[in-house]
């Protein structure tokens, strides 16, 4: 594995995964989660990643988001080889390029909605007024301007997830990674979130990779890939 970053300006792919393997050590046993996996995601795509529990969906998403490193292979996002970056540089890279949306929203309970959305902006050089402007825009995009001063505990699950999406997009990231964003919501709230993600993809050109095991959710994506026993395919597993 090369230790230098390989920049590929001519590469049309936003995400390029080549020969990625991921092995976890559990007690004295090696658990192979991903096996020689290749994946290309072009800019502007809304990709759904499906598969049964334990198939490695979240692990793959973590690798793409720079939260974890592959045991083998390379992960290149926006032309930058991220699997070789140091922890510090990887954190900076995530702040610049990645927006995360989690299944359980993962908002800070001690902060209001607007303060939660502001969190990624604290890592930028923006002044307070500019940060507030960006926060207002992001909350308006998810239709929650009127709930800006509310704490997460006073918001419904759907509203909390919309705050989570606002936090994910407030820095205008290159890539939005969603880990089962509707997994904890009822159908109606889930549909609202999917509508929102679809709008972000279609109207704002945001590239989205969404992990889900809900076919209803994956139907909103422009492409669906299936992961089973650490291998990717374009067809659902029978």
């Amino acid at each position, binding site marked *: 594995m090369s230790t230098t970053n390989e920049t590929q300006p001519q590469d049309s792919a936003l995400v390029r995964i080549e020969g990625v393997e991921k092995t976890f050590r559990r007690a004295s046993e090696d658990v192979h989660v991903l096996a020689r996996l290749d994946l290309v995601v072009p800019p502007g795509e809304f990709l759904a990643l499906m598969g049964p529990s334990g198939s490695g969906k979240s692990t793959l998403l973590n690798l793409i988001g720079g*939260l*974890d490193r592959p045991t083998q292979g390379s992960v290149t996002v926006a032309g930058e080889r991220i699997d070789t970056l140091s922890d*510090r540089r990887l*954190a900076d890279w995530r702040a610049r390029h990645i927006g995360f949306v989690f299944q359980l929203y993962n908002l800070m309970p001690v902060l209001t909605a607007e303060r939660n959305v502001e969190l*990624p902006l604290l890592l930028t050089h923006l002044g307070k007024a500019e940060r507030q402007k960006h926060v207002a825009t992001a909350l308006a995009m998810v239709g929650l301007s009127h709930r800006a001063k509310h704490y997460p505990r006073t918001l419904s699950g759907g509203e909390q997830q919309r705050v989570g999406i606002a936090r994910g997009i407030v820095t205008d990231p290159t890539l939005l990674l969603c880990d089962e964003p509707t997994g904890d919501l009822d159908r109606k709230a889930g549909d609202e979130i999917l509508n929102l993600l679809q709008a972000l993809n279609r109207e704002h050109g945001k590239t989205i990779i969404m992990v889900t095991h809900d076919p209803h959710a994956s139907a909103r994506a422009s492409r669906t890939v299936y992961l089973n026993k650490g291998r990717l395919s374009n067809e659902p597993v029978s």
Partner: protein
Amino acid sequence: MKYAHLVWGNLKRKKLRTLLTLLSILVAFVLFGLLCSIRQALVGGVELAGADRLVVRHKVSIIQLLPESYQARMERIPGVDLVVHQTWFGGVYQDPKNFFMQNPVQPEPFLAMHPEIVLPPAQRDAWLKTRTGAIVGRTTAERFQWKVGDRIPIRSPIWGQRTWEFDLVGIYEGRDKGTDTTPMFFRYDYFDEMREEGRGRGLVGWYTIRVKDPSRAAEIARLVDQEFENSPAETKTEPEGAFAQAWARQIGNITLIVAGILGAVFFTILLVTGSTMSQAVRERIGELGVLKAIGFTPAQVLGLVLAESCTLAGLGGGLGLALAWLLTVNGDPTGGLLPLFNFRTADLLLGVGLCVVLGVVTGLLPALQAMRLRVADALRRL
């Protein structure tokens, strides 16, 4: 500063726990302030002692008196600049609880020996002219609401059953912040003449010597003791600081006692605050993982946890030090037993330093734990 709301929000997460921890820290720092003030009251004289002054006392004990005639013999010793004597009067004003120090002295040499006693020239002249005249420090004058011209009755069981009457001719200030302004001084000639037969007429309590060259103080102390060797009243001469220290040590090694108590208190507080911080971090491993996921660097996460522990220690410690200052700002709470009782700026600064140390030490381990968190592992704990 832009992370302040995050730090503050986390502290408010478990309000009762934070409040109790804050109160523990606050109590520890109030205790720190009070103990420092008591220590200062008991051993402060050591720091205020003049480097060029020696104290000569009876070799057996401070309560044994020395002949007045020693003064002239000491003045003849080469290197001695000035000699004055004082005697413990041990009187009370109206009520036994109204105790404060009163000593008979020879006004002129005494004032020359103690430039830290600041007396207006007119009052000084009045004292020299008035045989029954006395001067008192500002603290005691205010305590009993005395003013110049008042006649002060004092009873002393040491020197007979009579009530001594003094004319207050002066109220002195201290040149330095720590100068003791509680004693009263009156004229030795009046005292010697009026004390009853058999009560040590012609004898004094102790001498203070000013030397011309402080670097020769030890040599002169030896010469003084040699001068009175094999006499009925042999002497022990020591620097004024050592004399003050020996006086304080009648109670015990104050500094060691204070350090022992404070050590135990701060060790307990270290455990309490450290446990609070560890628990606070353990409870939100997942949230720390989210912060890292959205781009907070390991160093920033470390800084956030440390900022939290330092805020906790700073807030509790700061309030504790402020409260200690408020409790000590009026000086001696015993009405005369601890005249130098005060919370010194140096101790206050030491307290501020302890706040910082407490914050860093209690936050360091949880902060390192948070810094080393692997994001993917932390997110799995949500």
